[in-house]
C-alpha cells in the first residue's frame, strides 16, 4: 500500500466505526481525530492539544484506548473503532450514567476521553482499586471537575457492573 502526498488528492477508504461502515475520502496525513470529527461529524471526540498530553481525543481501536490525535487515519482501515457516540444505546452507558450521578463532569470537554479510557480499563479490570483507577486515567486531563469525582464515577460503574446493574 502506498499513497503519494499530493495535498489535493484524497483516497476513498472504508472505516468501521461504532458498528457501521463509513466510506470517506482521507488524505494520508489526516489523523483519526480529523476523520472522526470533520469527515464523519462525530464531534463527541474532542481535540485538546494535538500532542498526546490531554487524552480528550481518546477512542477505542480494536477495544484498546488510543489517542486519535496521534493515530494516522490510514492505519485504522480494517480495524474496529469505537467513539463516545457508540456507547449509547437507547439508555446511557453505565459510565455516562455514573459520571452524571457522581458529578464527574462540569464543562464536559474532557468527559468523553475519561469515559473511553475508563471503558477500556474496566473491560479488563473487574475489581479495580482507587489507585489502579487513578493510574489508568493518568493520561487524561480535566481542568474543572478535579479528579476525585471522576474516580468516584469510575468506581461506581465498576461496582454496578459487578453487581449486574
Amino acid at each position: 500500500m502506498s499513497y503519494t502526498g499530493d495535498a489535493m488528492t484524497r483516497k476513498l477508504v472504508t472505516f468501521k466505526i461504532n458498528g457501521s461502515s463509513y466510506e470517506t475520502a482521507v488524505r494520508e496525513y489526516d489523523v483519526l481525530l480529523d476523520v472522526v470529527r470533520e469527515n464523519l461529524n462525530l464531534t463527541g471526540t474532542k481535540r485538546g492539544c494535538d500532542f498526546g498530553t490531554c487524552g480528550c481525543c481518546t477512542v477505542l481501536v480494536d477495544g484498546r484506548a488510543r489517542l486519535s490525535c496521534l493515530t494516522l487515519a490510514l492505519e485504522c482501515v480494517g480495524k474496529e473503532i469505537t467513539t463516545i457516540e457508540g456507547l449509547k444505546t437507547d439508555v446511557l452507558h453505565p459510565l455516562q450514567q455514573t459520571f452524571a450521578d457522581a458529578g464527574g463532569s462540569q464543562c464536559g470537554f474532557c468527559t468523553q476521553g475519561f469515559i473511553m479510557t475508563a471503558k477500556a480499563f474496566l473491560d479488563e479490570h473487574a475489581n479495580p482499586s482507587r489507585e489502579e483507577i487513578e493510574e489508568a486515567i493518568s493520561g487524561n486531563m480535566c481542568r474543572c471537575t478535579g479528579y476525585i469525582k471522576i474516580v468516584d464515577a469510575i468506581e461506581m460503574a465498576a461496582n454496578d457492573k459487578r453487581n449486574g446493574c
Partner: protein
Amino acid sequence: MKPAPFDYHAPTTLAEALALLDEYGFDAKLLAGGQSLVPTMNFRLALPEILIDINHIADLAFVRNEDDGLHIGALTRHAELERSELVAEKAPLLAEAMPNVAHSQIRNRGTIGGSLAHADPAAELPAIMIALEARFRIQSQSDDRWIAASDFFVDLFTTELEAEEILTEIVIPPLPARTGCAFLELARRHGDFALVGAATRVTLDNLGACSEARIVLLSVGNTSVRAVLAEQSLQGKALTGQNIRDAALIASDQDIEPPADMHATEKYRRQLTKVLAERTLTKALERATSAP
C-alpha cells in the same frame, strides 16, 4: 495543526521496508507507534517527505525466550511488554519500569524500538537496556549488525542508527546468579516523563560482597547516564547501608551534570538522584540476597 503532506508507504515485509529506506534515506522517516513522531509532525517540527509505516510488518513484533536471553521484536508495543509473563519472569527490571512509560493510551501504541530509536534522555527503556546489558540488532539492505545498548545512545535524541537502518530486535541476556535489580522514578504525574529515574542492578559474590554494580540514571543528562564512579565505589565491598549511602552521594555529586529546566533545578535533580540511587540499591541488594 495538521502534518505537512508526505508520501505514505506501508510495507508488509522487512525486505520491502529496507529497500524503501535504501532508496529514500534521509528524506524518509519510519513510523512505528507514532507516539513521539506524530506529535512533532502535528506541530510541523518534523516534516518527513516519505513516511514508511512499519506497523504492517507482523514478524517485527514478538517476545520469546531463547538460550542467549529474552528476544523482543522492535515493534512490540509497550502494553504487550507490560502484560507479558515472560518479561516479568526473565526481565523483571523491564517489567517494573513499564507502568512508568507514558499513559495507558500511549502504551497501547508506542513500541520498544521507537522508544530506543527516539533516545529521549528522560525515557525509561534506554536506561533499562543499559542496566541489563542488552544488545540491539540493526539491519539495512547491505548490513546486519549487533550493537551493545551502552554503545547505541550517542547524544540527545541521537543514536548510532544510520538513515537507512532499522532497529529490528533486542536481546536481554539472562541475569547472572545472585543478582537483583530495581527501578524507581519520580514524575509529577504518574506516566509523565521522569524528573529523575534510576535503574540499578547488583551482583553478589559467594561471601555476599558486591562483585558488580550498575547504576543507570535518566533525565540527568543528554542520554541515560551510568554513574561509573559510584559503581566503582561498591566493587568488592559489602553493601552496608553506609556504603550504599556513600555511593549514592558519589552518583549525585560526581557522576552527573544534570540540566535545570522549568520542572526541576539542578540541585533538586541531584537530591533526587541521591535518594533514588540509595533506594534502588537497597532494593536491588534485597532481591540479590534472595535470588538463586
